[in-house]
């Protein structure tokens, strides 16, 4: 009896317990389902953001990026209508032709009504966004007081709407709006995502504006130079013409004593004219605006013609001119006028610096691996150049150096210009000389014009840079309009073991930064063509150069402005050279490369940031995968340090995103985790990982991370050296 009772109690208890377990299980499942559906939504959001990020980076125009965003957002929200309004110069939103319409026939009336309107701040849905600079949501536009298109919406069956700003900094550059067929309550998750979309698109516009500004600035510069030279040439020509008239008068009326001073005026004016023409030529070459007129011509007659022209000048110093040119030299394909100009320059220089001697011009053809070349050399028996003079001649080739000017007379720019022309035609000018014995300048040009559009790189760096050793040296790009500064900086940094390339202006600097991908850039702030702030913004705004550390060099002390624009360091002129080389060395230690630290834990991030900064790294941070994607779009790091467990978008998801993007696939990833990885986890990580570090002691972790990253970069450098 009693045992039966016991059993009953036992049974009742078990039943109760089972009941409880069932409830707990139901609850667990509910939690799991909710988490799954959240994950799914998050995944969709991430896909949308990824789409937009890629579009923002790869779209060739702002319109393309906007169109992708319209389609992406409509697909994400399953809303049928999306549209873009752009702000015009008067600050009013103007409708564009950018639409997403699931059914263009059905929404025709709404489209028409929209395109017929403009929106001022606070009027209508777009106007509200323009005014408040943040997203807005209308549950039902047909019932909204501030929705001027409500009739058209009613007629086409559109109900809910939301809009968000495309922000460039604080400024609303455009507004995107979307509509659905049903009334809908505001969805915070959607609005948050849209804020991201808006800022991504804002960056596309920002980049485009920077490019436009650059183009405009360079157009202004060219225009200015063209105007100036015209303004100068007109009166100069008048001076020359009138003075020559006066000379004739003087001769005719036998006032011979007036003749000589007038002659001096004419010569001075002609010299000035030549200087202006040279400067214009050089600036055109530097701006990439100098066009070559390539044609096929017979070599011998052209050379002969130039030699004849210089005959009188040579005779002045009792020099004899000797031309060694086989009559069957044949044809070449190049810009004849520029070759004449270069040759004339070399022969007249030779004649000027030789007395009672011989100037020999010899022409030949040679065959090399690189094809057939025409070689024209001009040798004199004059005073020659010392090794030091020769070095300076080429080192200072770009600019009119005072001593060069004295030595050669003329503008001193002739040689530089001639050389640039030859380089544009795929050749070069070189010099050999022995003091007291004479000099030989040699023009070498491809017989067949190979690459008339070859980029003109200023060869202002000393020749030693071409040795293998210096190829390993980190390359520093020095942007400064002052040739003395460029010279001194080049000299100093070369001595410190850096390779140096210089640019004399912002435009050229930006182009070189993109082409050469230097390890670091030193940038002057006060430059005539484009000021340093604009250049810095353009460097940081272009994904191709955003990762290159920039050290500002200037006389204006505005550190904070520099740092806020993304400068790595700041030096006030006069520059402390050892300070500069220390800064550059620490920047270049990691080849000036960047690391992105992705971890939701502030403490870990700030610890890593400090340690990595000291190790010379450029550190970007993100608190989760989603933010990391945004950072990646801003600037591509060389290495990523990644935590696995994070809210919003975890490490696994970010890795998936990295692998599905061609540009990011190769970035080495160092995983940090406090989790014991299961086989499943390892399978998901699937090899593409540099190294997995367990989170334990902070200090140990930091030094381990530094260690792995350093080795990682070492290896990559090794690779790039092995395959130059």
């Amino acid at each position, binding site marked *: 009896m009693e045992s039966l009772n016991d059993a009953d109690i036992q049974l009742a208890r078990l039943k109760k317990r089972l009941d409880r377990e069932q409830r707990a299980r139901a609850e667990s499942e509910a*939690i799991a389902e909710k988490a799954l559906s959240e994950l799914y939504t998050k995944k969709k959001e991430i896909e949308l953001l990824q789409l937009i990020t890629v579009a923002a980076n790869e779209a060739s125009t702002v319109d393309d990026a906007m169109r992708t965003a319209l389609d992406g957002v409509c697909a994400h929200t399953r809303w049928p209508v999306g549209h873009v309004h752009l702000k015009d110069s008067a600050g009013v939103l103007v409708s564009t032709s950018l639409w997403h319409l699931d059914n263009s026939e059905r929404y025709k009336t709404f489209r028409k009504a929209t395109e017929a309107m403009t929106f001022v701040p606070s009027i209508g849905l777009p106007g509200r966004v323009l005014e408040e600079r943040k997203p807005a949501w209308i549950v039902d536009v047909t019932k909204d007081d501030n929705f001027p298109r409500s009739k058209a919406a009613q007629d086409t069956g559109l109900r809910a709407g939301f809009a968000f700003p495309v922000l460039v900094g604080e400024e609303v550059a455009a507004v995107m709006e979307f509509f659905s067929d049903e009334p809908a309550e505001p969805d915070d998750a959607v609005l948050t995502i849209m804020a991201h979309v808006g800022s991504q698109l804002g960056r596309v516009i920002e980049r485009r504006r920077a490019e436009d500004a650059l183009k405009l600035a360079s157009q202004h510069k060219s225009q200015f130079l063209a105007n100036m030279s015209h303004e100068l040439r007109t009166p100069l020509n008048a001076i020359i013409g009138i003075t020559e008239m006066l000379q004739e008068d003087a001769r005719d009326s036998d006032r011979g004593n007036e003749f000589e001073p007038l002659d001096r005026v004419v010569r001075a004016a002609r010299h000035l004219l030549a200087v202006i023409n040279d400067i214009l030529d050089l600036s055109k070459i530097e701006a990439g605006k100098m066009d070559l007129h390539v044609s096929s011509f017979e070599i011998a007659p052209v050379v002969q013609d130039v030699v004849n022209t210089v005959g009188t000048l040579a005779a002045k110093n009792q020099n004899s001119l000797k031309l060694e040119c086989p009559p069957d030299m044949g044809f070449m394909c190049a810009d004849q006028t520029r070759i004449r100009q270069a040759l004339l320059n070399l022969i007249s220089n030779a004649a000027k610096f030789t007395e009672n001697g011989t100037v020999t011009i010899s022409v030949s053809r040679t065959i090399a691996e690189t094809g057939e070349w025409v070689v024209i050399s001009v040798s004199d028996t004059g005073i020659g150049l010392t090794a030091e003079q020769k070095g300076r001649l080429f080192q200072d080739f770009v600019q009119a150096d005072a001593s060069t000017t004295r030595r050669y007379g003329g503008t001193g720019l002739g040689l530089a210009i001639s050389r640039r022309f030859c380089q544009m035609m795929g050749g070069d000018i070189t010099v050999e000389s022995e003091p007291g014995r004479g000099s030989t300048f040699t023009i070498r040009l491809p017989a067949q014009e190979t690459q008339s559009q070859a980029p003109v790189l200023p060869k202002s760096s000393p020749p030693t840079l071409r040795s293998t050793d210096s190829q390993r040296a980190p390359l520093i790009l020095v942007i400064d309009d002052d040739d003395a500064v460029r010279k001194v900086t080049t000299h100093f940094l070369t001595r410190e073991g850096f390779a140096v390339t210089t640019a004399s202006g912002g435009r050229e600097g930006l182009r070189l930064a993109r082409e050469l991908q230097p390890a670091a850039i030193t940038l002057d702030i006060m430059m005539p063509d484009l000021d340093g702030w604009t250049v810095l913004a353009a460097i940081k705004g272009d994904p191709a150069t955003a990762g290159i550390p920039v050290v500002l060099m200037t006389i204006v002390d505005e550190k904070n402005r520099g740092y806020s624009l993304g400068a790595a360091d700041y030096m006030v002129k006069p520059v402390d050279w050892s300070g500069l080389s220390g800064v550059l060395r620490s920047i270049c230690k990691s080849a000036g490369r960047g690391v992105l630290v992705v971890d939701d834990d502030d403490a870990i991030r700030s610890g890593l940031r400090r340690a990595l900064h000291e190790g010379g790294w450029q550190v970007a941070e993100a608190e989760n995968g989603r933010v990391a994607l945004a950072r990646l779009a801003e600037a591509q790091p060389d290495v990523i340090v990644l935590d696995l467990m994070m809210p919003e978008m975890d490490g696994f998801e970010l890795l998936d995103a990295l692998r599905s993007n061609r540009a990011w696939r190769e970035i080495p990833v160092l995983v940090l985790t406090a989790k014991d990885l299961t086989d499943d986890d390892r399978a998901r990580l699937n090899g593409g990982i540099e190294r997995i570090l367990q989170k334990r002691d902070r200090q140990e972790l930091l030094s381990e991370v530094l260690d792995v990253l350093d080795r990682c970069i070492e290896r990559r450098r090794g690779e790039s050296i092995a395959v130059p």
Partner: protein
Amino acid sequence: MKGVVFNLLEAVVRRDYGDDTWEALLEAANTDGAYSSLGNYPDEEMMKLVGAASSALKMPADDVVRWFGRNALPLLANKHPHFFAAHKSTRPFLLTLNDVIHSEVRKLYPGADVPVFSYDTSSSEVLLMHYKSPRKLCALAEGFIEATAAYYAEELSLDQPECMNRGDDKCVLRVSVKKARG
């Protein structure tokens, strides 16, 4: 409070006092007792269970909590061995509470409300841990620390010069350990 804590309490009560005791506690505390480890449940339910245990076992509530902590920690160590395997001694383990252990706990159990300790490490002998929490569960911390020392086979001396339960604005846990002999 996370369901996992209730699960732990259930596990140690069943193990040490039998299934009936747990049933009796649930009844006395008037809770339905269905706890899922990832769920969130009102703190009061835990306090009621502790209260019920205190009268059933004739033990002060603090002692119940301390006992719970002492017995729950080995279960946690079983579940998450890497937190412990990374160290050889109590002190370095305790120093990773904020940065590693509880920060990971927050991710493993979304919504977990774990305390943040601040440390005074000026002495290499004595570690001072400052604890502040509306739940005033310093006894739980004590239990955890006792079990941790046992885990590393160290002799522990632990007291609280300041305690919120005695009217101070924070608790100070004074911890020193030395390797157990033999």
